[in-house]
Structure formats: structure tokens, C-alpha cells
């Protein structure tokens, strides 16, 4: 029978390497990874203040905006004459160009046969159109 011998243990800290060791040939593209192009990101510069809307109607076809198009409306941008804007006219949403004529602000269409709307207390300019998205085929 063997006698019990007291033993003194000292913990030894060994670093654990958390690096994987791939067996195959490493991809040569590894360090040149880029994200794919994100059109949404490019169109919507200011996501917290931007809204997407769908266009119904033809009054802005002269400005290249057609029925069914998606537009990006930015509420952080200060509306100025010349901007295409979304406005609430008596509560109805409408898409028009903001124009100034003789110290008056107007909402004007860009197609034949539409009247002008004077910006008064019944009109609220809701946001500035900053982007357009359309898909074909």
C-alpha cells in the first residue's frame, strides 16, 4: 500500500488561441469584402425623416413622375420654391411643384389641364421630394 503524499498545486494560465485554422487555400478576396450596392440607402439620405409614397395620377408627368412611381419624401429638408413637394390641401395629399410668383407661393402641376393652388392656411407643405424609384418589366 502506497502512502499519501501532500501535493502543492499551482495553477498555470495558458492563453487560449481563438483563431481558427482553415485547412484549405484561403480566399484571396477575403480582405476586399464590400457590401453590395444598396439603392435604398442611396435614395433615402435621411431615413428618420423620410417617407416613401406611391404616386397616383399624371399631373407631374412633365417632371418625369408618373402614375405608380414611388417617391421619397424628406421632411427634414426645408421646402423652397422650385422643389417638388407633397402638400396637404384641405387634408388631401397632393404632389406638385412649389413655385413663387409675385410674393405668393403656389402649387403648380407639370402637365396640361391642371389648375394652380395658392398656398394659404388650408395648405400645408408636408415634405420635399428627394428621390424617385420605378421598376420596368
Amino acid at each position, binding site marked *: 500500500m502506497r502512502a499519501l503524499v501532500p501535493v502543492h498545486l499551482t495553477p498555470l494560465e495558458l492563453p487560449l488561441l481563438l483563431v481558427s485554422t482553415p485547412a484549405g487555400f484561403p480566399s484571396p478576396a477575403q480582405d476586399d469584402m464590400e457590401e453590395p450596392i444598396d439603392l435604398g440607402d442611396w435614395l433615402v439620405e435621411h431615413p428618420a425623416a423620410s417617407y416613401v409614397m406611391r*404616386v397616383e395620377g399624371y399631373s407631374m408627368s412633365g417632371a418625369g413622375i408618373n402614375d405608380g412611381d414611388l417617391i421619397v419624401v424628406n421632411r427634414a429638408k426645408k421646402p423652397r420654391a422650385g422643389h417638388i413637394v407633397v402638400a396637404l390641401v384641405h387634408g388631401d395629399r397632393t404632389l406638385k411643384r412649389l413655385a413663387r410668383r409675385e410674393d405668393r407661393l403656389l402649387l403648380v402641376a407639370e402637365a396640361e389641364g391642371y389648375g394652380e393652388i395658392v398656398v394659404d392656411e388650408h395648405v400645408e407643405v408636408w415634405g420635399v421630394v428627394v428621390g424617385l424609384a420605378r421598376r420596368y418589366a
Partner: protein
Amino acid sequence: MTTPVALIDCNNYYVSCERAFDAGLVGVPVIVLSNNDGCAIARSAEAKALGIRMGDPVHFLRDKIAAHGIRVLSSNYALYGDMQRRVVAAIQPFARDFEIYSIDETFVDFAGFEHLDLVAHARAMSAQVRQWTSIPTCVGIGATKTLAKLGNAAAKKNPLFDGVADLREERVRDWVLDRFPARDVWGVGRATAAKLARAGITTAGQLRDMAMKRARGLGTVVLERLIAELRGIPAMAVETIEPQRKGMAVTRSFGTPVNDIETLMGAVAQYAMRAGEKLRQHGLAAGRVTVFFHTDPHKPERPQYSASRTLSAQPMTSDGLVLLALARRGVESAWREGYAITKAGIMLDDLITQDLRPRTLFEEDSDKRVRLMTAMDEVNARFGKFTAVPAVQGFRRGWTARSEARSPNYTTRIAEVPAVRA
């Protein structure tokens, strides 16, 4: 010297979100219903004026709805969640730090802005939120969170404040506290309110002046802290506050930024378990879980990302593991690689007393499925492997909640974006 704190609170939040996209709801009485279209959980000012109270079951309101042409909407949490993200983004430039307290309330740390006219600063913040989201807000400013909260209530109630009440000024503070019911002070529960009333304490001012010794005999440690807060001494972490009917949140900033989903999941799991605990403590169940996380907004040179996802709990639950499972799904869907996340949290909305919670037809069945799924979560949680795929798929798909009058998901689905006439 304490730094000023503000609470910015959206007015009639759910209704305001709906009105942002539907002008037909402006100026008319509107109510928004809870999960499953059960009871009124948000009311426009016009609806409040008609005597509709928070939590009124909709079947008791039929006559009123017909007589006054009240517009009734199902809740649309996808919309409310997305709008909240926007509200918080609009607040950020005005604050050193902020703490999301519920879906419509955010505490704002004004440290570093003291040299400004803070009332004007708060108005500018409010205007920015209004401009970006159309949502009206009120702001309360004070030396402590409790005073900020009280100031907010005052700003909401009294048009004299014009939306911003600054309780740092003694005269204003005293005026407000002497008129504010003690039972409505943030953190005073029903039992404590009754005890206070018996002791002759009915206003917030009287509560502030109460001797600490007396408070100790009467209430709990919470009451003492609350009195300290009313005196302008910060004593209260948001965590010690009991959840309100409307919602509660558990959030934290990270000491070191989190770059991987596993670590974030670990943090969110803790919040979920903590939130479940708190719900059970107060006998409540939640119908919605929102999980959110974001990068440091004060380091604009770094890539910025802010995400939140709202999921419904069906049936309503107070089970931390169910909350965890929901939160985890939210994180999985919102996670993007390559960002240093510095803050995360979960929020619970649509809270209801556990025994009033609507029973669902398939409850037993879905309970079982939840249990099956969460059993695995538990195992995962223990071993720290939050990335494992749930064994049971689609427990939410079993049935859908009743939401007969839900508005479109204006801001989160291409097919449902608002139309504009050209």
C-alpha cells in the same frame, strides 16, 4: 449640483401616429384598441372629452361610438414602432444621452446643455420631432426623473405651459407640486396612495415635505427614494419604478461596444428575463415586445445603425422565456454586421392585468408550443448558444389576432405606403 433631466412624451401617441398619415382622423374623436380589438388603449383629446377612459372595453362603448361617430382603429404596432424610431432619432441631436422609457416616452439628459435656455432648447427638440414625424409632444424638465415626469404631466394638462414645463424654477415647481395629486406621482401605487391619503397627504407638495422617518413607517424604500426625488435629489433608477399600464422598458448602455450578435443576444436575454420578472411582480401580462439596439449617435464618424423590431405575444404573456424568444427573433431580423452597438433594450407594451388578459381559443395548444420552443431556449441560454435555430417553427402562425380596423403599414411595407395624388 445635479444635471437637468427632461422627459419628452408624445401626446396621444398611437392616435398621433395614425393621424400623421390619415388627415381624416384629425379633429375627430379617435380611439385605438388593444391586441385583439378588446379595449381602448389610446384616445384622442376629443375621445377623452367624450368620457372614454383608458382600458374601457369596446363592447361597452358601442352606443357612444355610434352616437358621436368615433373612429375606431385596431392597433398597428409596426407603425408605432417605426414612428418611435423616428421620434428618438429627432431627439438625439438635442441630448447628451437619452433613455427610452416606453414607446412614447424618452428621458433626455441635458448635461452639457445647461448654458442654453433649456426651455427654448426643449421647444426646438419638440419642434424637430413634430417636423420629422408630425407627432406633437410635451416636455417636462427637472432636477430628477420624477420631477421631469411630473413636469411633463403639468405641461400636458395646463395649456399655460405651452408644451414645456421647467420645474427647476422653485416658484413653478411649488405651484405644480401643490396642485398635483399625490396618488398620480410616478411610482406611487394604489396601496401606497390609500395609506398616504389616510395620513392626510394628498398633494405631491405634501409628499415632498413628509418626514423621511414617517415615510419609512408608511411605505417602502421606494417611497423614501421618491420623496428624495421630489426634493430634487436623484435617487431613482428607472428600474425601481413599477410598470405603467401602458408599457415599460429595460435598457442598458454597454461599457464596451458590442460587435457580434451572440453578445447582443446574451444582453437582450437578460433584459427579457428581468422584464418577465417585473411583469409577474406586478401581476401584468404584455401583448407586445419591442427590441431595439443602436450605435453611438455621438460618434458620427463611425458607421451608424439603429434598429428596432416589434413582435406580438399571443397569447399575452409574462413568461421571460417567451419574451426572450420574441426578442431574439427581433434581434435576428434586425442584426447587421459591421456596427459597434452601444445600447440595447427591450420594451413591453399593451400591458394588462394578468387575470383580465384575453383568453384565446387556441391558448392551450399554443401554450404547449411556446413551452416546447422555450424549453430549448432555456437550454440554449444555459449554454450561451443563442444562435441555435428554434426547433418549433412558426408558433405565431397558428392563428392571427383580431385586428379588423388596422391601418396600413405606411412606413414599413412597400405595398402599403401612402398614396399621393399627382
